[in-house]
C-alpha cells in the first residue's frame, strides 16, 4: 500500500489514503480490499457473498434482473434509495453506501415486505427470474416516495419499472402489486435515522485506492486529487456512473488496469442554480439533475424521464454522457440546443467551450490526456424562447434513440429571431443543424418556414442505416418533427403519445 502510494506521486501523509472500500451490505459492515478494479457488484454478490437472489439477465444494464438498491445520505439530511443495475456497477463504487439486495427485504421471522407480499398475492411472478429486480425497483420507489407521501399512479410505476423487463406477465399484475403496496409503511421507515447515522459515520475525506494484481481502483475525495491522479496517469479510465464503462468490462472484456472513479469527489455532484441558469457538476447523475433541469426547461425533464431507465439515471452522469461522446447520447443534443457550456480541467489548467465544439468526430472529443469534465453550465432561456426535445426510438422507454430532435426557438411577434437546433442519431456526433437554423432565422414561423427548414435538414445531415433505423427514417422523422414543433408552438393539439400532454404547450 505504501509503495503504491509512493508510485502514485503524491505526498500526502501516510495513513490518510484508504486501501479499501467500506460500506454496508444489509446489516453487515463490509471492508473490501484487494479486489480487481473491474469487479462488478453482481459478480461480488453472487460469488463471494453467496447472494444468488440477484440475477444476471443481460449483463449490460438493460433488463433489470440484477436490480439492487443503494442507500446514501442525502445532502441536507435524509436518505436516497436508488435502484441500480448491479451488473454494471463496480464494487468500488459502493464506498460509503448501504447496499440492499432482495435477501434483505423480508423480516427475520420471514414476514414479507409489503411489496413482496403484494407480488405474491396479486400473481406478479411467473417464472420468477426477473422478480427480485422488480421487487427492488418497487421497494426503492416506495422508499423514495416516502418523502412526500404521494400515492403512486400507473404512469409513475411505468417510469419506475421501465428498466425491468418481464417476459412472462405482460406487467399488468406487477403494476397492480405496485399500486397496492408502494405506499404501505414498512420497517425501513423506522430504520431510516439509524441507517443515516451509520452511513454518515462512514463519511471521510480520504482518497481511496484499492489495489490488486489486476490493477487499481482510485477514488479521489477532492477535485484537486482527481486532477493530480489523472495528470499522473493520463491513460487511466475515468469512471463516473459506469453505465458505459460497465459494458467495456462485461461485454468487450477490456483490460482496464486503472479506474479513477469521480463519485467520491467532494462537491462534484453539486447542482447550483444561478441567476444565469444551472451549474451542473460532472458527477451529478441524471436523477440528481432531473428536477432542476426540468424546472429550467420542462421538455428536458421529459427527455430525461425517457433516458435509459431509473437504474441507468441513478448511476449515469451528465458529465460522463458528454465525456464519452456517444453519437446517440441523449443529453448532449439537448444541452447543445440549450446553449450549454462545458468546463474542462487538466491539472490546474481550466478551459471552457461551447458544448458542440467538444464533439469533433465519431469517437473523438476535444479532451486532452489527463483532462476531465468538471462541470456544465446550462443558461436560462432568453425571453420568448421555446425549448423542445423529441426523442424517437423503436420502444418508448429505455431504448437508444433513433432520432433526437432538440430545439430552442425564439419567437418575436410570429417571427423567428433565434434558433438552435441539434440532433442525436443523425451524424457521428451530436450535431447542430446549421442550415435549418439559417433557414428559419428571420422568417415568419409558418408552414413555409417549416418546409424550408425541412429541406435544409437534408444538407445538414447524412444519417446512417443501422439496426435502429434507416437513413430514410432518420431524415424523414427529423423533418417531420419540425411539423410537431410548429404545431406545439402555435397552439395545435394533441401532438404527443406519451408523457404529460401539457408539456407540449409549456
Amino acid at each position, binding site marked *: 500500500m505504501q509503495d503504491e502510494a509512493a508510485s502514485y506521486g503524491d505526498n500526502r501523509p501516510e495513513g490518510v489514503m484508504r486501501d479499501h472500500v467500506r460500506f454496508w451490505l444489509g446489516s453487515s459492515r463490509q471492508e473490501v480490499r484487494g479486489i480487481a478494479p473491474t469487479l462488478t457488484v453482481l459478480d461480488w454478490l453472487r460469488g463471494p457473498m453467496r*447472494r*444468488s*437472489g440477484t*440475477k444476471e*439477465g*443481460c*449483463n449490460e444494464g438493460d*433488463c433489470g434482473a440484477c436490480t439492487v438498491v443503494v442507500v446514501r445520505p442525502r445532502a441536507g439530511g435524509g436518505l436516497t434509495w436508488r435502484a441500480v443495475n448491479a451488473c454494471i456497477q463496480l464494487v468500488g463504487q459502493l464506498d460509503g453506501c448501504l447496499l440492499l439486495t432482495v*435477501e434483505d427485504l*423480508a423480516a427475520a421471522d420471514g414476514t*414479507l415486505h409489503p411489496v*413482496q*407480499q403484494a*407480488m405474491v398475492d396479486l*400473481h*406478479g*411472478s*411467473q*417464472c*420468477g*427470474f*426477473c*422478480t*427480485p429486480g422488480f421487487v427492488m425497483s418497487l421497494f426503492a420507489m416506495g422508499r423514495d416516495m416516502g418523502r412526500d407521501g404521494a400515492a403512486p399512479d400507473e404512469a409513475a*410505476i*411505468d417510469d419506475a*419499472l*421501465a428498466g425491468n*423487463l*418481464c*417476459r*412472462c*406477465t*405482460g*406487467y*399488468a*399484475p*406487477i*403494476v397492480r402489486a405496485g399500486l397496492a403496496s408502494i405506499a404501505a409503511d414498512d420497517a425501513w421507515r423506522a430504520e431510516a435515522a439509524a441507517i443515516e447515522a451509520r452511513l454518515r459515520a462512514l463519511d471521510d475525506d480520504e482518497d481511496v485506492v484499492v489495489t490488486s494484481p489486476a490493477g487499481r481502483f482510485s477514488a479521489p475525495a477532492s477535485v484537486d486529487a482527481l486532477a493530480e491522479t489523472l495528470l499522473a496517469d493520463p491513460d487511466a479510465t475515468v469512471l463516473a456512473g459506469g453505465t458505459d464503462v460497465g459494458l467495456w468490462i462485461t*461485454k468487450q472484456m477490456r483490460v482496464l488496469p486503472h479506474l479513477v472513479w469521480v463519485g467520491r469527489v467532494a462537491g462534484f455532484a453539486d447542482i447550483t442554480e444561478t441567476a444565469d441558469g444551472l451549474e451542473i457538476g460532472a458527477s451529478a447523475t441524471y436523477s440528481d439533475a432531473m428536477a432542476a433541469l426540468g424546472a429550467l426547461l420542462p421538455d428536458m425533464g421529459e427527455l430525461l424521464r425517457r433516458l435509459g431507465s431509473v437504474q441507468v439515471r441513478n448511476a449515469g452522469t451528465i458529465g460522463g454522457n458528454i465525456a464519452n461522446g456517444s453519437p446517440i447520447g441523449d443529453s448532449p443534443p439537448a444541452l447543445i440546443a440549450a446553449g450549454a457550456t462545458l468546463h474542462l480541467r487538466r491539472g490546474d489548467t481550466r478551459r471552457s467551450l461551447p458544448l458542440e465544439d467538444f464533439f469533433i468526430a465519431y469517437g473523438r472529443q476535444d479532451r486532452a490526456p489527463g483532462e476531465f469534465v468538471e462541470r456544465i453550465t446550462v443558461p436560462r432561456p432568453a425571453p420568448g424562447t421555446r425549448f423542445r426535445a423529441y426523442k*424517437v426510438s*423503436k*420502444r*418508448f*422507454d*429505455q*431504448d437508444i434513440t*433513433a432520432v433526437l430532435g432538440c430545439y430552442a426557438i425564439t419567437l418575436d411577434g410570429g417571427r423567428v429571431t433565434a434558433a438552435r437546433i441539434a440532433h442525436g442519431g443523425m451524424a457521428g456526433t451530436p450535431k447542430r443543424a446549421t442550415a435549418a437554423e439559417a433557414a428559419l432565422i428571420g422568417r415568419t414561423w409558418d408552414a413555409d418556414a417549416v418546409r424550408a427548414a425541412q429541406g435544409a435538414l437534408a444538407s445538414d445531415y447524412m444519417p446512417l442505416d*443501422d*439496426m435502429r*433505423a434507416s437513413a430514410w*427514417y432518420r431524415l*424523414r*422523422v427529423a423533418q*417531420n418533427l419540425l*411539423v410537431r414543433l410548429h404545431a406545439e408552438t402555435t397552439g395545435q393539439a*394533441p*401532438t404527443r*403519445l*406519451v408523457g404529460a400532454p401539457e408539456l407540449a404547450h409549456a
Partner: protein
Amino acid sequence: MPDAIAERETSAEGGAHRSRRHESAHKHVTGAAAYINDLPEAPGLLHVALGLSTRAHARLVSIDLDPVRAVPGVVLVLTAGDLPGENDTSPVGKHDEPLLAEGHVAFHGQPIYAVAAETREAARRAARAARIVYEDLPAVLDIETALADPVLVTPGATMQRGDWAAALDAAPRRLSGTMAIGGQEHFYLEGQVALAEPGEDDEVRIWCSTQHPSETQHIVAHALGVASHAVTVEVRRMGGAFGGKETQANPFACLAAIVAKKTGRAAKLRLDRDDDMIVTGKRHEFVVRYDVGYDDDGRIHAVDMLYAARCGYSADLSGPVTDRALFHADNCYFYPAVRLRSLPLKTNTCSNTAFRGFGGPQGMLGGERVIEEVAFATGLDPLEVRRRNFYGIGERDLTPYCQTVEDNVIADVVDTLVARCDYAARRATIRAANAAAPLIVRGIALTPVKFGISFTATQFNQAAALVHIYTDGSIAVNHGGTEMGQGLHTKIAQVAVEELQVDAGSVRVTATTTGKVPNTSATAASSGADLNGKAVQAAVRTLKDRLVTFAAEQYGVPPDTVAFLPGRVRIGNQDVPFAALIRQAYFARVQLSATGFYKTPKIHWDRDAGRGRPFYYFAYGAACVEVAVDTLTGEYRIERADIVHDCGRSLNPAIDIGQIEGGFVQGAGWLTTEELVWDAAGRLRTHAPSTYKIPACGDRPRVFNVHLLDNAASHEDTIFRSKAVGEPPLMLGIAVLHALSDAVASVGGWRVCPRLDAPATPERVLRAIETLRA
C-alpha cells in the same frame, strides 16, 4: 364420477378451479427460488464458453487453438474432432446439426470450439482467442434470396381440399398479395445454462434449463456415446422458456457433460446474453403469398397460400413448425376450397425453432391478412367479414386438413367481446375523429383466435407421473412436465389436492427428472397441464383405489361409502384423518406409490395425405385493441385491449389470466417493436436487450381487460374440463397489428389496404403512412 368431484361445495382449498398462487411465489419474491446458476458449485467446477464462427458460410481452412490454450486458467479445449460420441444434436434425427462445426460453418455464430477454464471470465476470454482461417462460401441470408433457388431443410407440406384452382377462377372477385412476417427472439430472462457432474462408470448428472429433459438426456447420451440410463437430467424450474428451451438447451447440456466426463470435474456452461441470442434459434420468419377468391359480400370462396419460412441452417423443429403454420392458416374461417403449402427454406442463419404458438401465429397472421384484404376490397367492416367467414356449427365446419370443428364457440366469444368492449360505437367515434386528419390518429381492430391443442406428432401426446404418499401423509408428485413460469406445478398440485382433498401444503411437486419419469414429451404445445394433469390424476386414482379397497376391508363397509373429504376420509359413518389412514395402510402393507399414464384419445394424423384429426380440441379467444399512432414519426401506443378467452373450466383462473395477459403482450411485442436485424454479412445486429426491444412496462395496454369465457366446460374429457392456455393467447396480439393498420389506413381514407408487414416498427408504420399519402 370423474368431474362431479369438482362440483362439490366441500372441495379442498387449493384444489381445482381455485386461483391458487404460484407454488414458488414466495421464493420468487425473496430470491430464494434456485435456478441452475444459483445451485452450489462443486469444488473445481469448470466454466465452459464457446468459440463462435464469424462468417455466415465458409470452409474452415485452419483453426489455431494455441492462443486459446495460452489464456491462463484454460483446462480443456474441444473441437469437433475431440467429441466422444456423435457430433450431432438434431432433435429429429436428421444428423444436420453438429455440436461443433466440422469442416465448414453454416451461420455467423455457429459454435466451432468449446473451452473449459477455471473461471468464467477466463473461459470467455479464451473463447475469443482462436485464430481461424475461413474461406468464404456464398451465403443465403433471407427468404427472398432463398426462394430464387429453394433448398429445403425438410420436406414442405401441402393441405388441400376441394378444387381450389377452379374455385379461385370461378369466384366473383379475386386478389393476391404478399406479407412478410418477422421472427422473434425468445428473450427468456434466464439464459441457456447447463451444469454437469460426473458420476461413476458412464454416469453423468445434468441440471439443465430445458423444456425437454428426456430429449436432453437422449442427445447427451448420443454425444457421450453411452446408454441413456447413464444420463440423468433434472430441472426444478426455468426462468422462462417460451419454446426456446425445447431443443435449444441440448447442445449446452452435451458440452457441459462432455467436459465433465473428460475432466472428471463438474462443468457449467452458461451463455452470455449476446452469445445466447446469436447462437440459438428463434421464431421463424415467413413470407406468405396469398391468392383469394371471394364475393361482394366478403365471403371467401377459395384460398391458395404459400408459407415460405426462413428455417436457418438445419431442420431442428422446422418441419412441424411450418406444418402448424398451415394448420392455422384458416384460423376461425371456413375455406370452401383451399390449398396451403409450406416451404421450409434453408438459410445461413441460426436454426429457427419452437416459439410459443409454433408456427401457428404466423399461419394465422397470413389468414387474417386475407380477411383484411377482403374487407378493404369490399368496404365492409373487417369484423363483419370475419363473422361471415366463421366456421359454422354442423355445417361449413371442415378444416383444410379435414378435421371437423366440433367444439366451435367462436361466435359466442366474439359476441361476448363485442358487447363488453363496445366495439361498434368506439369504431364510429374513432373514424369520425380521424376524418379531421389530426397528427395523432387512432385505430381499432377485433380479431379472433382458434388454436388446435395436441402435438401434431401423435406419439408425443402421452405423459406419465409418479406419486408417492409417505407415512406422514405427505405426498410427493413427480411428472414429466417442466415448470417455466406457466404455473404447471401449481396446477398439477391442484389436481392431486382435488383428487385426495388433502391440505394444499401436504402436496409437493418435485423437480422434473428423467430418473423418476422416463420418456417424457417436451413441455410444449400448451400440453403441460392437459397431459401431465391427467397422468397425475391417473396415478392418484390408482392410489385412491387401493386406499378405498383397504379402508372398506379394514372398517367393514362397502367401498362406495368411502369418500375423500377435505383433510379426512369418510369411511362409512366414520371420519378418519388422511394421515391416519395412510399410516394404517402402511402397516397393512398397502403400496403407497403409483405411476400414472395418459395418452390423448381420438387423435391421428397422416402428414403425407394432409388429412386426419391432429387436434383433440380447439381453444378460442378474441381481442379488441385500440391504438393511437403518431403520423409524423410512426410511433404508437396501445390505448386499450379487451380480451375474452376460452380456458374451458379454468383449472386456475389467476394463472390463466396471467397467461393471457402475458401472451397478449408477448404477441404484441412480436408484431411491433421486436425486430431482428441481420446485416449483409449475416451477423445478427440485435443480439442484446439494448438493440432488441421486447415490450417494457409502459408498453402494456393502458386499459387492459381480460375476461374468461363463462360456462365454457371443454367438450372433451380434458383434465377437469379445462383447456390449454399456454400458446393461444399469444395470437390475441394479432389485433394490435390490425389496429395499427386501421389507424394507418385512415390516412388514405380507408380506401387502400395498408398491407402492413410485421413487425410494425415505428419506421414501418411511418413508411406505410407515407406510402398512402404519396
